[in-house]
């Protein structure tokens, strides 16, 4: 394993920070009821998106799911395009036809995000099949949640990727909940997702999904393995979403009992942004003033994107039929 250089460590920190500031800003604005699209915020899960996407080349492609803002931004998707899409504007990345769960930015290698849990997993494998047929060295990464392993589509795709030795990095964000269903009602006690995946003869690793540096190293190794034609890799990243399943609120504020405030706080103590920042300071790669500067920069960027999105025009109703095949 080659040591990750200092510049990349800083980039990883700045990426989790930017994702965090974007999502908490958007979540706060969401309460204004002007973003008329069901929105699944990824606050708390930034390290997975940042760790994997920074490990990929610009020309590599990613697919993601309904909680896809982090992945979209981490891969370099247009922030303006995302924010305008949430506001339903013509300048949105999907021209206001897709909303929060249907994002795209081909120029950044974000093919699509979709709302059906396991849907993009097979699609990612199909893109990898095309790369393999063309002897194209690009890699495909696909993000999905733990509940995708309850749908048949996952098993069809991972079996196919294994049979064909396809260059796919399967990234499972295991945040322990499917909407409000805890893992305990969805999996038998003692279940290991990695064990399931290994039975398909696919390399699988369980990771601390709140440690952006650990995720990054594992993703680098996985992408390298894919590029060498050694087949797919599955990364199970243990993480936690702070906000409700869909929407900008904390569950405990709404009196929901499916998880406790104490559980949330125990995960907030493992905040991926703070942990990464502390490591940079400890290793002498950044001073606390620099962290503050980067925070201010991230806030300024998101605020100006919001201002542009709010000012942007809505699609014209006469264009309702545009983009139908």
């Amino acid at each position: 394993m080659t040591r990750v250089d200092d510049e990349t460590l800083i980039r990883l920190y700045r990426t989790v920070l930017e994702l965090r500031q974007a999502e908490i800003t958007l979540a706060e604005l969401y309460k204004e009821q002007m973003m008329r699209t069901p929105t699944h915020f990824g606050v708390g899960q930034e390290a997975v998106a940042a760790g994997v996407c920074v490990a990929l080349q610009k020309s590599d492609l990613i697919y993601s799911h309904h909680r896809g803002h982090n992945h979209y931004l981490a891969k370099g998707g247009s922030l303006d395009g995302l924010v305008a899409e949430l506001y339903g504007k013509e300048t949105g990345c999907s021209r206001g036809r897709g909303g929060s769960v249907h994002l795209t930015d081909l120029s950044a290698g974000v093919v699509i995000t979709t709302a059906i849990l396991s849907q993009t997993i097979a699609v990612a494998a199909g893109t990898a099949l095309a790369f393999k047929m063309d002897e194209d060295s690009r890699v495909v990464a696909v993000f999905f949640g733990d509940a995708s392993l309850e749908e048949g589509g996952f098993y069809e795709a991972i079996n196919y990727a294994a049979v064909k030795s396809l260059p796919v990095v399967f990234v499972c964000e295991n945040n322990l909940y499917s909407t409000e269903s805890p893992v305990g009602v969805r999996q038998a006690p003692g279940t290991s997702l990695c064990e399931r995946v290994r039975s398909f003869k696919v390399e699988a690793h369980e990771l601390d999904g709140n440690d952006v540096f650990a995720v990054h190293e594992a993703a680098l190794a996985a992408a390298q393995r894919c590029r060498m034609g050694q087949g797919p890799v599955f990364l199970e990243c243990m993480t936690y979403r702070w906000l409700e399943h869909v929407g900008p609120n904390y569950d405990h504020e709404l009196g929901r009992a499916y998880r406790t405030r104490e559980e949330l706080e125990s995960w907030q103590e493992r905040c991926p942004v703070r942990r990464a920042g502390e490591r940079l300071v400890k290793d002498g790669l950044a001073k606390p003033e620099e962290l503050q500067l980067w925070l201010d920069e991230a806030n300024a960027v998101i605020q100006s994107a919001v201002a542009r999105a709010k000012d942007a025009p809505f699609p014209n109703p006469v264009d309702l039929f545009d983009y139908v095949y």
Partner: protein
Amino acid sequence: MRTLSYSRAISEGLVQAMQRDENIFVTGIAVDYPSGIFGSTVEPAEMFPSRVFDAPAMEDGLTGIAIGAAAVGKRPVIVHPRNDFMFQGFDQLINLAAKWSYMYGGQAGRVPIVVRAVIGRGWGQGATHSQSLQSVLAHFPGLIVAMPAMPADAKGLLLTALQQDSPVVLLEHRTLYGHEGEVPERPIPIPFGRAAVWREGSDLTIVATSLMVHEALAAAEELMRHGIDAEVVDPRTIRPLDEETILASIRKTGRLIVADTSWEFCGFASEVAALAVEKAFHALKAPVRRIALADCPAPVSQPLENAFYPKASTIAQAGLNLFGSNSTVGEIDHEDSFKGPY
């Protein structure tokens, strides 16, 4: 012009398209086996072994694989030996491929996948191996659905499908693979949304799909013996639908029978009936008749099957009834020439 079977016509079309476009590949269960989907993929598999390959039984996943390959420039053809297996791929096909262009505002490119799926009837195919899914599929904006009845159309519509930038489903009838007809040797695409009028007539319009085109043509011959001159219109594509040709025929004849390979409830026959009453109401001289499957799942036992599937005689009898005739239809029904076990 030389004649080819429906199966050979598809094979020839595939080979010609694959010679021109190296991005085309064909996959699905047993596409590279000696039997090759009623013979239609045998020659392509021989000529392009790396581009015609078997797949695990994964109808949902395989449709997703095709979409993902198409998203980066491939032109996948996936084949279902029975269209009933497509149900498992509906999420990918209908919920993703058909909507891809629209829900990403045209910004995520196109996913031009082609799905070939075999429909069938008779010989005890039973409830889960004899459906005909055109109405379900065509319901969704974004999906093209074609039903070739003639060998030339099987080739020409496939060639068009392989040049589209959107997903296309081709529903091929099992009974038609051995059917012979004139087929141009050159690869001439047949445009979608253009119906064929296989028989011109002045008294009655029969709009028919797939195998029912042949039943309608036999019915039209019988009706002629009773002095009724029927026109047989084959829409060839369910979506897009050539409304103009259908309406022009209805306005000419004033009478309409729709004969489809599926059920009438929420079905294609009902769609055409609605088209007639909305846009050609004043031309109608008689009620519209729908000829479709009996309203139950497909049975197996032969006497039940005989009662379940409409045939040439069913159409002809309906035609006679429309004219208030008490005549009886002759022995015009084809024997089911299909041989088992598959």
